[in-house]
């Protein structure tokens, strides 16, 4: 079983704790630093998020850049992750303090690359183009593009509606010479699983959504292994 860590550097909007159904445990210190919070008994999924450090979950983290950068520096250097196969870093939208802080603090370690997530709309790919430039300028390899919210199949009549337009992810990949990892459809079951902190992959293994996420993960893993 692989050991995976998730570092949630969205300080203003930390969503990962809820999505993994990890309530509000205390963060403890050990000799090696802060102990991450584990999502499972086997300790195969470790997580650090500012969500765990707030006394009141509705409290707003109203911080300017330097304070955000300092916290992210601590998250990278002071968390005792232990042996991990993969560390995933979830970022807020943008190309600013958080993104620069993550890269600066990970400089001494190897950053395999970045996955860029878009929706099919031009309004979304328009911003992701700039994110790709950010990666190029900071020397981060673009592992590939994932297109979320890629169509909705009506559960009543099976008609597919392209609610957020169509094809933007693939077009963006072609335009920028990036790998298109795949697309994930809109799925109310995925939305509600995430809300309720359920493991969608365990609950709905036969769904088209599972198949899409699975093939994206496989493509990503082989790309990392071939490196």
């Amino acid at each position, binding site marked *: 079983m692989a050991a995976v860590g998730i570092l949630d550097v969205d300080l203003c909007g930390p969503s990962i704790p809820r999505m993994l159904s990890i309530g509000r445990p205390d963060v403890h210190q050990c000799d090696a630093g802060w102990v991450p919070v584990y999502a499972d008994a086997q300790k195969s999924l470790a997580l650090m998020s500012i969500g765990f450090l707030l006394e009141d979950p509705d409290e707003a983290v109203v911080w300017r850049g330097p304070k955000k950068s*300092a916290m992210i520096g601590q998250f990278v250097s002071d968390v005792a992750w232990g042996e991990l196969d993969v560390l995933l870093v979830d970022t807020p939208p*943008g190309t*600013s303090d958080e993104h620069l802080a993550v890269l600066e603090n990970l400089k001494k370690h190897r950053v395999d690359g970045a996955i860029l997530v878009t929706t099919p709309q031009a*309004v979304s790919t328009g911003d992701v183009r700039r994110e*790709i430039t950010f990666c190029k300028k900071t020397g981060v390899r673009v592992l590939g593009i994932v297109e979320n919210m890629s169509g909705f199949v009506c559960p009543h009549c099976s008609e597919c509606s392209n*609610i957020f337009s169509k094809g933007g992810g693939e077009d963006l990949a072609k335009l920028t010479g990036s790998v298109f990892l795949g697309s994930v459809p809109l799925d*109310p079951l995925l*939305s509600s699983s995430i809300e309720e902190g359920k493991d969608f992959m365990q609950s709905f293994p036969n769904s088209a959504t599972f198949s899409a996420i699975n093939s994206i993960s496989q493509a990503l893993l082989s790309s990392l292994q071939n490196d």
Partner: protein
Amino acid sequence: CDELPHIQAGKSSSCEGCPNQKVCASGATKAPDPAIAEIGAKLSTVKHKILVLSGKGGVGKSTFSAHLAHALASDSTKEVALLDVDICGPSIPRIMGLEGEQVHQSGSGWSPVYVDDNLAVMSIGFLLSSPDDAVIWRGPKKNGMIKQFLRDVDWGDLDYLIVDTPPGTSDEHLSIVQYLSATHVDGAVIITTPQEVSLQDVRKEIRFCQKVKLPIIGVVENMSGFVCPSCKNTSQIFPPTTGGAERMCADLNLPLLGKVPLDPRIARSCDEGKSFLNEVPDSPSAEVYQNIVQSIKDYCSNRVTEEQSTT
């Protein structure tokens, strides 16, 4: 200190270890920025200022801001402007059909870009020469740009100035509130989707508004159900597992301005730079939008009436 909470070594604490400590202690932060008074004077000819906020990204803030601007400007006697302070992800030029436009400087400052005679737009998007350009700026530089947008743009006399923001409660949000502190801001419209993951962040945004004493005009719930164009059945694509914006507004005693259903033609209009309200005026989504806009107009004019009755 306007940056809260303090967290050190995993616990809430005093200022020790805060990267701002030296600057704070020296008193350098205490002197008010002269730009605040300049902006106060410059924007004295703007009758109503509305901020559009959300805690979460991707909920439809820019879509809403753009259509609010279009709807307000549909009254040709009103002068409307839309200011995009999403420095890293400026979507407004595309949504308003103004991609590729450039900003001009004159003696009286920067000229905004006009969609119609009575609808002006400013965005960093107009200052970038390529759609691939990334604005890789830390907080202070972003703040400087926002200051310039407010102080140096020749807005003229306006009935409404709408400010579209990036998601979060950080530099851009503190700056906008700080630089507008010598003016009157009517309030903020907060955008969410029905998901708890979105509401969780909206509650933080609401706390931010309360902290900086920014009135909240109300909450808009986007992506609120989808009617299949083929069989006309409704699906909740983003199920409101904790009661959606309706329950949150009831709990927090805030107005729910409206629930906008998903319509694929909204995304298409935005991508094409057209107003959805013009393209598909009979859509249920367009009708909800118009009702929301009316509520906002009523809020703004009630504020004026209140002020007049107390003077």
